[in-house]
């Protein structure tokens, strides 16, 4: 497979995954905005912008934070490189370049999403439309992933899912960080009512609330939720699940073994951050520190993958 093709496929799935995360983040903000906001807490839209890595860009354009502006910036703004619109449009451009590595279904899925978001972009919307946009985005990404299953199980397929899980590992880690570092002003609040409420909102936004209920007995506690999102191999958004899939898809590549061994160091370091840890050890170390560390490890692995396969 051409390096350029592999790189394009890798980024198509990263952009699609990112579009989903952006939409889900807005949903977190939206749900939180429906609850009374006690004094001393960060504004939920502020948190959403930080988590989306979009705060700097947003403030060059707007002076104040409100739902309409944040929604527009994160969903539709062409100037925001991570907006849902930018992600889908970049994924579609990449898909155009690798049409031979794609089945017609996969192309049609992305092309259709692009055509639809162009239409949505030009419509007037109200506050209440936000959940619909989120739902629409999730549907589009699911359609893309479903159509990717029609691909030949060659390197192209594995690069697509490698991109998916690298992006998801990064995004899940950032979402966790928002919860702990951004939303709660001090550690004293951990375990309080508001703390639990925020966890539950996060679970709901990730469509994982029911899954969590099935996986754990008894009360919702932050320890259980941290375990769920970091170490639980059954949760499709957990860091551990993502790492296992990254390892799996790397091993499936038909590339020469020395290529894989080149990236072994990066892989080993990422793997150790879920294999050798317990929830207790993570919390003791500090969740924020753990997550920051994890994100930089993923970024190192991503660099290694790009250098060794695409350059």
């Amino acid at each position, binding site marked *: *497979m051409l390096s*350029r093709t592999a790189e394009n496929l890798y980024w198509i799935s990263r952009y699609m995954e990112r579009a989903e995360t952006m939409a889900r983040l807005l949903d977190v903000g939206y749900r939180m905005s429906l609850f009374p906001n006690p004094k001393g807490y960060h504004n939920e839209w502020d948190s959403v912008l930080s988590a989306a890595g979009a705060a700097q860009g947003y403030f060059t354009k707007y002076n104040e934070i409100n739902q309409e502006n944040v929604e527009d910036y994160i969903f539709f703004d062409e100037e925001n490189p991570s907006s849902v619109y930018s992600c889908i449009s970049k994924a579609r451009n990449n898909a155009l370049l690798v*049409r031979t590595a794609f089945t017609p279904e996969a192309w049609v899925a992305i092309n259709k999403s692009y055509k639809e978001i162009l239409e949505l972009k030009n419509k007037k919307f109200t506050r209440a439309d936000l959940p619909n946009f989120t739902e629409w985005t999730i549907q589009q990404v699911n359609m893309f992933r479903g159509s990717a299953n029609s691909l030949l199980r060659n390197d192209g397929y594995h*690069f697509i899912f490698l991109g998916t899980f690298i992006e998801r590992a990064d995004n899940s880690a950032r979402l966790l960080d928002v919860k702990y570092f951004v939303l709660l002003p001090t550690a004293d609040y951990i375990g309080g009512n508001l703390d639990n409420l925020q966890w539950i909102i996060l679970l709901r936004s990730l469509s994982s609330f029911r899954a969590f209920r099935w996986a754990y007995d008894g009360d919702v506690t932050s320890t259980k939720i941290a375990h769920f999102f970091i170490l639980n191999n059954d949760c499709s958004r957990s860091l551990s699940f993502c790492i296992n899939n990254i390892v799996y898809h790397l091993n499936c590549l038909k590339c020469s073994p020395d290529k894989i061994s080149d990236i072994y160091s990066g892989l080993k370091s990422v793997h150790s951050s879920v294999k050798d840890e317990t929830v207790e050890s993570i919390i003791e170390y500090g969740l924020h520190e753990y997550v920051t560390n994890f994100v930089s490890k993923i970024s190192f692995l991503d660099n290694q993958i790009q250098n060794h396969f695409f350059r």
Partner: protein
Amino acid sequence: MFDEMYSDDAQIRKHYLQVNSWLRTMSSTVISQKNFEAESHFKRIGITFSVKDDDMTERIIPFDLIPRILTNYEWAKIEKGVLQRAKALNAFLHDTYNSGEIFKAGIIPKEIVYKKSSYDQSMINFSPPRKIYSPIIGVDLVRTGKDEFYVLEDNCRTPSGVSYMLENREIMMKMFPDLFHTNRVLRVDDYPTRLLQTLMSLAPKKCDSSIPTVVLLTPGHLNSAYYEHTFLSDQMGIEMVESQDLFVENDLLYMKTVDGPKKIDVVYRRIDDEFLDPLCYNPDSVIGVPGITQVYKTGGVNICSAPGAGIADDKAIYIFVPEMIKFYLGETPILDNVETWRCERDDELTYVLENIEKLVVKEVDGSGGYGMLIGPKSTKDQISEFSTKLKSNPRGYIAQPTLDLSSSPTLIDNEVSGRRVDLRPFCLVGEKVQLCPGGLTRVALNKGSYVVNSSQGGGVKDTWVLAD
């Protein structure tokens, strides 16, 4: 005018009987619905073309539901004639870049060839694998009578349109499967396989594998034939590469893959000669591969078609093709050329100017139906304007009689009506020389028009060759 469906006594020709009764069963609602279906299909897969004078907007070529049918008997002649031509054109290319026997024999004046920009000096004394320069030749044919087929031009570089031949058949089989039960239509869908076999049979001498690595080189997604590039590489299961994927090392050509560099044996290039190699041709080319010509000349890779193959389809060389057939093959030409006057000759220019209202005058280097004058369809002003241009640059023009192109039944506003057609079959020249039984039929959708080009109101049809 020869009507392909009706004989002179207004009887339906035998090979159109089935299609005619099928047409009678279709209400205009069904026709509209099927037209819509075909159009949506072409839009969805993105099979588009660009229009020159329209800011390069992308359009879908109109597709006519009624197939153009050729009998096995009619096809046999076309096939023999095209194969003969394809062999002669390749023999000419080898001769013209090597010993030049045809010039020595005084059959073609050599200055006609050497002066042309499509004549590639750097190809002199070089011989590509199997001495084949042009492995894919599209021959444009027109019909004027029952057994009268004429060659309008040859396309020896990178003829396009074959994706329409395949997609038109695909959509017809999808929409009207019953038609293919009642008619025995020869298949065209194995064309990509045959193309791949042809390209593999042209591996260069340094290729040490029994399965040569073939790639398709595209200028990129902005090219008007990009869809065809993706379609053909997909159907052949080969990589579609751009210049940035390729590099030259130790006189070999490689592509960058996730496995590391992979050696390439055959390049089916869909970019023009001048952009092929910035070191050898246009130095500003960003879509070419620096050093690829050196690899080619030392037998590390084959480039299909060969650089300089375009000299064989030059309009000034065209008139000599029947002579080439006699000279190289010792055969009588099976398909005739259209009578052609070269305006650079004084006596012929005089004839053309005197008879211009009856003639078609074309630019020697023009294509796509642009820069031509159709005498009988032009106003006095247009004719006098063109005559002035002709007199100032006679070397730039040729003239041909206005041919009464055959007409084929076509759906216009849901009614059947005759429209003029041409035909481009695709000939493959490798270890075997073969013609795919079918081709691209273009149809002039405007009433009475002779211009079949898609840029000027032309459409396309599925082209059938019957098995018996």
